[in-house]
């Protein structure tokens, strides 16, 4: 039977694709929001470092369709049936992921939430950047650059993403301290991908031909805005503060197209996420809230060792 042949081949393929892990080690599932952003690669690297130090395995799996809440719920559920030792999760939605996390906790699988907060109290700890502080930092930087006056635009990231909403809130609160600055737009969303952000940014730049400052709350929005600015030749002329790092953004910081990048420490987030999960497994008491810190990179300080490491994290080979 042909069907039989095909399935036999599939079985071999599956077996070949499967993890070649030693079964004795404990497995910690690390579930990001997506897998393509640089940011998540740094988290992966941090998680791997923690795992190597503690002798556990990492199961790294994002939702097959990024920014799809239901898909991420499935990954959490499947991790529970897989009987992993613990889950480190960056929830796509603060409400939608609460139920599966509560079910995991009920099944005695501790969950450590990283990056974005989650409703409820089923998770053991929340390891993340103080996003509001990061937003305020960006406002401070932009306000100083503009000398306290001008027209400023903020391109929001996405509906329902708690971490970026906090950054946006922190930024708006911070910018309000400069009475000479007017916010011309703060109600547009960049969307999940850099491509969507690019389109949204183009439209915004078209609408506001006279701008003095721009803030974007994450990597893809920052990158999309950078491309849009470059394509209309306004790069460098508008003061631009972004959030998160990638090779391209670091390059733009060097050339003066970007004037400030708020840097989180994703490597540390991944590292501390796994370490905290292990602490919980070992029965240690952990903090409910663990801050991983933020820093501001500017064209002037970008070569200092601390900032350079955050800007260009050296990812180990095993991170795709």
């Amino acid at each position, binding site marked *: 039977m042909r*069907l039989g042949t095909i399935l036999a081949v599939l079985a071999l*393929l*599956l077996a070949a694709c499967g993890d070649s892990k030693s079964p004795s080690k404990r497995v910690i599932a690390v579930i990001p929001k997506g897998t393509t952003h640089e940011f998540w690669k740094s988290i992966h690297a941090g998680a791997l470092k923690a795992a190597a130090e503690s002798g556990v395995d990492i199961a790294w799996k994002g939702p*097959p369709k990024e920014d799809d809440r239901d898909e991420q719920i499935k*990954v959490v559920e499947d991790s529970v049936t897989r009987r992993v030792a613990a889950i480190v999760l960056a929830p796509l939605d603060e*409400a939608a992921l609460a139920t599966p996390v509560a*079910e995991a906790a009920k099944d005695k699988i501790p969950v450590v939430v990283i990056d974005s907060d989650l409703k409820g109290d089923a998770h053991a700890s929340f390891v993340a950047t103080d996003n509001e502080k990061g937003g305020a930092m960006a406002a401070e930087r932009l306000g100083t650059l503009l000398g306290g006056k001008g027209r400023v635009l903020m391109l929001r990231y996405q*509906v329902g993403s708690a971490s970026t909403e906090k950054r946006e809130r922190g930024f708006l609160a911070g910018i309000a301290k400069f009475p000479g600055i007017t916010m011309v737009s703060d109600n547009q969303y960049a969307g999940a991908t850099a491509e969507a952000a690019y389109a949204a940014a183009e439209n915004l730049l078209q609408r506001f031909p006279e701008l003095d400052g721009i803030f974007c709350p994450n990597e893809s929005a920052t990158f999309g805005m950078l491309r849009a600015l470059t394509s209309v030749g306004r790069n460098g002329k508008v003061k631009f503060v972004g959030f998160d790092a990638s090779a391209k953004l670091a390059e733009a910081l060097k050339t003066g197209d970007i004037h400030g990048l708020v840097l989180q420490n994703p490597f540390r987030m991944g590292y501390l996420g796994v370490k905290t999960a292990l602490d919980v497994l070992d029965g240690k008491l952990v903090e409910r809230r663990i801050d991983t810190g933020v820093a501001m990179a500017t064209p002037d300080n970008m070569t200092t060792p601390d900032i350079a490491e955050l800007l260009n994290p050296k990812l180990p080979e095993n991170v795709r």
Partner: protein
Amino acid sequence: MSDSNAVRLVRRLGPFLGLALVLVLFTALEPDRFPTAVNFRTVLTQTVIVGLGAVGMTFVVVSGGIDLSVGSSIALSTIVIARLLRDGASPAAAALAGVVAGGVVGVVNGTLITRLRIAPFIVTLGTLQIVRGTAKYLAGEQKIDAPASWLAGLMAKSPDPSWLIVAPGVWALILLAGFLAFVLRRSILGVHTYAIGSNESTAVLCGIKVDRTKVLIYGLSGLMTGLAGLMQFSRLTVGDPTAATGLELNIIAAVVIGGASLSGGVGGIAGSLVGALVMAFLANGCTLVGVPNYAQEILVGAIIVAVVAIDRSKRGT
């Protein structure tokens, strides 16, 4: 060439055989974690949304049509439910309104297709965008938080009361699928659905009110989509205007894997449900075995093509 009865039987059993092979395969690869009650309960719950959509879509596909707007329609339902709950409506009223919203989209699809005489693919390609946009407008481009209600329990893997064993949503799927399978096979509406899909000009010639029947079919499918939207809401507990993006393709894939022909006249509810289960078990099994996402996507794509190819060769055309 025309089907002999033996070929018909193979066609009907084919999807079940495929499901059995998927189950055997993953049981062999993951004997400890795959064939467990907890895992099966999980997968069944994960199948509910695609399954409900596929049951409705089977009617549409058998009639020779297609509905690309179901993903958007599911999102619209979650928004309608969340908004009503937020504004103080009772959970039952909100749920009903969500289901009806899906039905309305279906009736609009059917009416546009029959009145404007535009191909279903084009009409629903349009409503896919229109409905998604409407959902975003109703939601103010944000997800809508709703107060907690018993609706969340519809998709709870550990149901309350516990004698239900599986989530109420799973039972809803099983009962509705059983009833609608009977409707499709045995009701006058069902026979007319096959007739229209098999040969529309004959159906016209036999005095079937083809336009009215099509509106009914899309309306019925829309109600099922609305119900899928209710289950999606139950799972997310929020109204999400971006939910179920692209889900229509999974639903259509389930119907096709289940043995339906996109040119109409062939297909059945049981097959489509099995198709949905095959997809869900594949995704689940791949995760358990540790197959990365990209390999899983390639695999599902290859299976869709392979299933249809095998089906064609069985029919000898």
